[in-house]
């Protein structure tokens, strides 16, 4: 998905300025990492891309369409191609981990006889096979975070928006999710993720030469590529 913003201004209800007359352009199939010292601003920005936070001024186009002009049916159809990982986008509390991920497939219209097997395989790859029948309240914070990521990825969305997806993940689970994102990107998914996790930044440095990852900074309401940052 191609994401473009012109003269974007966003102010949150408390009066804090998230964006001020900002321009942005994330090319088709890009892997964009958003760095921001202000976690709230990064979240608000990603929610704006997800169609949940209308900009106060300016135009946001995704694949040349204004998602805020969509009807509810168009928006639902558009959401079928978008995966989101937000901290307030909880797992369904009354379903098991396996059911939560299966529900996404049903919702997106990808459910068939082989789906349950695919869910099992993904859980196995994530090291969560033994947690498949547990409900969210029985999982650790890290496992919940991984489950939310799996839910967002299993249907291979065209756009994945992830707000601090590595929060609470350490060691092997962190490495697994990092690898999943890379694999997903290779299948053509556009990723926009925000993070302030030192372990991610450290890991990402190893892949510094990977031209696929674009680094951008959100600071004082302006978004700019990291290499153009003027100190």
């Amino acid at each position, binding site marked *: 998905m191609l994401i473009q913003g012109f003269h974007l201004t966003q102010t949150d209800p408390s009066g804090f300025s998230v964006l001020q007359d900002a321009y942005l352009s994330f090319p088709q199939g890009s892997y964009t990492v958003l760095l921001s010292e202000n976690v709230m601003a990064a979240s608000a920005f990603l929610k704006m891309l*997800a169609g949940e936070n209308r900009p106060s001024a300016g135009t946001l186009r995704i694949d040349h369409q204004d998602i805020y002009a969509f009807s509810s049916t168009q928006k*639902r159809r558009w959401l079928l191609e*978008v995966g989101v990982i937000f901290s307030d*986008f909880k*797992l369904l509390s*009354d379903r098991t981990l396996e059911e939560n991920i299966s529900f996404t497939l049903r919702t*997106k219209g990808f459910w068939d006889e082989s789906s349950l097997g695919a869910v099992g395989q993904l859980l196995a790859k994530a090291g969560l096979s033994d947690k498949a029948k547990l409900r969210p309240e029985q999982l650790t914070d890290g496992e919940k975070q991984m489950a939310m990521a799996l839910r967002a990825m299993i249907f291979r969305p065209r756009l994945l928006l992830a707000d601090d997806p590595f929060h609470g993940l350490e060691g092997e689970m962190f490495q697994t999710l990092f690898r999943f994102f890379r694999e997903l990107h290779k299948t053509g998914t556009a990723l926009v993720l925000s993070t302030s996790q030192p372990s991610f930044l450290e890991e990402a440095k190893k892949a510094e030469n990977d031209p696929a990852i674009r680094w951008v900074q959100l600071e004082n309401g302006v978004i700019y590529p990291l290499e153009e940052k003027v100190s």
Partner: protein
Amino acid sequence: MNFILRLGYVIQEGFRQVIRAGGLSVAVITIVTATLLQLSLFLGVTRVLDHAFASANQKFEMAVFLSASATSEDDARIEDFLTHDGRVDSVQLITKEAALEEFRKDPSVDQMVKALGENPLTDSFTVTLKNESMDQADSLAADLKKDPQVDDVSYGKGEWETVSNLIRVIRWTGFLMAGLVFVTALFIVANTLTLALWARREDILSMERLGAPMWMRWGPYLCEGIFQGLIGSIIVTVILEAVRRAAGQALQKYGGFDILNALPAQEWIGLYLRLMVIGIVLGILGAFWALQKKWIKERL
């Protein structure tokens, strides 16, 4: 997903949500059960009265007295008129000789007749009306009286009207009370289901964010209402049938009457089916009403 798979999903999820809702489900089922028990009382009383009235109607007879000058041709003409009238179930001619014979069984009347020296009675017809034509007794009597050879028509008009009006008042009062109970229960069920939805608002928001279609988000909630109504009505059916069997036998044994078994089995089955339909309607209307709440409608 095709329609069958969608329906299967909605039914399965609806049933699971009845279990998940736990205490709130128990509350809704209890309300439905209590409501249906009250409704069954109204419906049952109305049906028993209708049945009793219908039985009484079967014994209702109209006597048509002819004038003393009526000939056998007149008898035949009037009998033909009655036989072909749509309101009439059966007609029996009682000649004045047959009537006298019957009267003379009473010794005092017999002496009176002997003193008179001739038969003072006239030919008459005993007419039974069809059940559905009971309220047309007046018009039939009026039609008969137009015939110059019909002297009088007697059918206990006053008593019949009193009983008929009484039953009508009881029936309409029953319907009114039943309606009030239903609306009250609907209000409580809707608000209880709203609480259930409120408890799951985060899940509803998550479904919305996933882009779940409307049938997937709200279908299970409607189905949940249907299941709760159905469960409540099944409980009521079991209770009523147990009471009918136990109390019916006891009443017959100790009281010598059997009002509960006065209705044939088919009537009871009909009552249970009606209660099930009312239970389901109560559940689905309650769920639908709950889904009309502003904060939910915004997400529809």
